[in-house]
């Protein structure tokens, strides 16, 4: 597909670009960047004046629920939510039914995405067979089938020896390992962050130490095995500190946080709000501040939503019974843009954590507008004001704590391989 995007403020940290220029895409590939570009007659053209033009945003942590849990979301609806949120690529977690722990299931996702998805869908395979934590999944096969990472997301690999071997083996295969870091014994029957709010509500708490201890283990295992590890959805000040220190001494650790962890505290649980129930749980104010500080100093490499659609029957219940997780694809961009307004990140920093870095971590040829790269582009209207409404969300599920929130900033166009897949 051919496309000319004219007069936008192009921000591409991969090339150190922040200036007003045109982007020309031919046959789905970036052909040229520059001033006053022209295209052959009939080439679709976007007037991007006043808008930001960035490498296509990448959400490296979503749950598309397909196969098996299509009543929550499927590859088609999830990809529509992604496109509406400005994402051109998503990495989908393997806790489907069946689990993406073998080539056949991975191929199902890849093939279904090919025919039904609006955006690039990169499956994540499991670390262990069935994500049961007993023995390694066939990572080589998973990679060949198109998986960009492995993770037992939703639960940790409790056995430290097995996790060590997973890191070593994955290094050989050349596939990224994503750790869901949680000490399950410390979590116990906890349903929210342990703190004053849990005391007041009489809900069982999850201590921050449950995350920190598990993150520390992954850091030491990665250091020992001299292998990279990526930590999913960090939420605590301690996790950030541990990872910052590890990076300083050269450990190959990267991490992501989610918009809700730098936007909300456990106060949001008051009223037993099940749309504020997720794992890890919303933490305290100092943790929120620590997430921002860790984004600002580069400790946190990526913003990922942990988009976790659930049916109302699973959320509109008593708090203890409600499932963990919230949808995030369509609210991530404005919540992250707020960081720019607050001075936590500049625009280049934002594009780094939402596009360039996730691409690097997953080893995919995305996250850049370099000539010759795939023509995935997000055109952002940073001033667009809008309100989050359940019936306007593209996702099949509406479990968001941000319903009713007034947002600023939205994707104006989402472009995948030179084709506009979403237009506001």
């Amino acid at each position, binding site marked *: 597909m051919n496309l000319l995007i004219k007069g936008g403020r192009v921000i591409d940290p991969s090339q150190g670009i922040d200036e007003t220029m045109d982007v020309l895409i031919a046959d789905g590939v970036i052909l040229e960047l520059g001033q006053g570009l022209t295209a052959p007659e009939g080439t679709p053209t976007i007037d991007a004046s006043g808008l930001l033009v960035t490498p296509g945003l990448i959400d490296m942590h979503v749950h598309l629920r397909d196969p098996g849990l299509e009543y929550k979301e499927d590859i088609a609806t999830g990809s529509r939510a992604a496109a509406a949120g400005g994402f051109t690529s998503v990495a989908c977690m393997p806790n489907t039914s069946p689990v993406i722990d073998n080539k056949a299931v991975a191929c199902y996702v890849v093939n279904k995405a090919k025919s039904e998805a609006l955006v690039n869908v990169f499956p994540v395979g499991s670390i262990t067979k069935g994500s049961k934590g007993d023995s390694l999944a066939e990572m080589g096969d998973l990679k060949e089938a198109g998986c960009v990472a492995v993770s037992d997301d939703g639960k940790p690999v409790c056995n430290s020896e097995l996790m060590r071997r997973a890191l070593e083996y994955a290094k050989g295969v050349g596939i990224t390992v994503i750790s869901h870091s949680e000490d399950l014994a410390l979590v116990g029957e906890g349903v929210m962050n342990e703190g004053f709010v849990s*005391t007041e*509500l*009489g809900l069982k*708490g999850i201590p921050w130490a449950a995350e920190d201890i598990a993150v520390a283990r992954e850091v030491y295992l990665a250091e020992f095995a001299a292998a990279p590890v990526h930590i999913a959805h960090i939420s605590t000040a301690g996790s950030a500190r541990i990872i910052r220190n590890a990076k300083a001494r050269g450990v190959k650790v990267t991490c992501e946080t989610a918009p809700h962890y730098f936007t909300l505290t456990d106060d949001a649980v008051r009223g037993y709000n099940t749309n504020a129930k997720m794992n890890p749980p919303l933490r305290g104010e100092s943790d929120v501040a620590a997430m921002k500080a860790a984004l600002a100093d580069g400790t946190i490499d990526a913003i990922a939503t942990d988009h976790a659609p659930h049916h109302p029957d699973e959320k*509109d219940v*008593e708090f*203890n019974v409600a499932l963990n997780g919230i949808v995030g694809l369509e609210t991530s961009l404005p919540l992250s843009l707020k960081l720019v307004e607050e001075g936590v990140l500049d625009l280049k920093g934002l594009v780094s954590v939402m596009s360039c870095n996730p691409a690097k971590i997953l080893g995919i040829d995305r996250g850049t507008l370099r000539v010759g790269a795939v023509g995935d582009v997000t055109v952002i209207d940073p001033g667009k004001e809008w309100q989050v409404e359940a019936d306007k969300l593209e996702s099949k599920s509406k479990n968001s704590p941000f319903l009713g929130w007034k947002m600023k900033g939205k994707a104006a166009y989402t472009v995948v391989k030179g084709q506009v897949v979403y237009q506001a």
Partner: protein
Amino acid sequence: MGFRHKDIIALKDLTKQEIELLLDTADNLSEINQRDIKKVPTLRGKTVINLFYEASTRTRTSFEIAAKRLSADAVNITASTSSVVKGETLSDTAANILAMKPDIIVMRHSVSGAHEYLAKRVSCSVINAGDGAHEHPSQGLLDMLTMRQKFGKLAGLKVAIVGDITHSRVARSNIYGLTTMGAQVFLAGPPTMMPPGIERLGNVTVCKDMREAVDQADVVMMLRIQLERQGKTLLPSMREYSRYFGLNPAVLALAKKDAIVMHPGPINRGVELASSVADCDQSAILKQVENGVAVRMAMLYHVCGGEPVE
């Protein structure tokens, strides 16, 4: 002043005046419980459903008697005998009960916040008979009634609450109610049973040593240690718990001379309470049970829109 709440879910939500109104009404209604014929027609034609998702003898019976003494029709549903075992959701159960046009649902539920959830979904009144580790307002009220009867006031009293504060809805309701009424609460228990930030819930002081809490106290309230719940990691043994946090005559002697001993029941003799203390003259435990009926009558009466009783 009337009572403006449709539901009674938490003492945290009630003002001093509202708590006083409930206690005054309970005091007035308690006279009915002394009569030969213990029944008034006040709530005739009203239907009260006791929906109990957790085992309870005292509270359920007390609510049932309270409803019947006011001439309401009381029906008991317990989780083990209803369709709950077939996996019906609380929301569906509530809708089905509501279709039978009750006026009040009295519910006990193991999940904190279940009542807030229920109250948003039903048009009838909801009274909380205990939700998880959150609140147990009728217990808090009957405790305060018992204290007020003994001392004539609540303001200025020193109340010691000893035991597993983390898992106690009784402690939370008492903390909220007593703080609102101007009493001082002193908590004691092993650190494994003391939740973070508890001192911020009200006028609360956390004591490391039980004797500090009991010293010069007007009221010593002992909480039940639930062996089945806390046995695993929170305590080395009941024996050691009893040594440090059980109330025996020597510790009780530190309290004021006219102090009373309270317990929400059922008591574990020889664990949190020495038998000699449970049965001593200072024990108000059975008075609490007696007051429970009057308090619950007052709660039923006021959520039905009852005016202050003269």
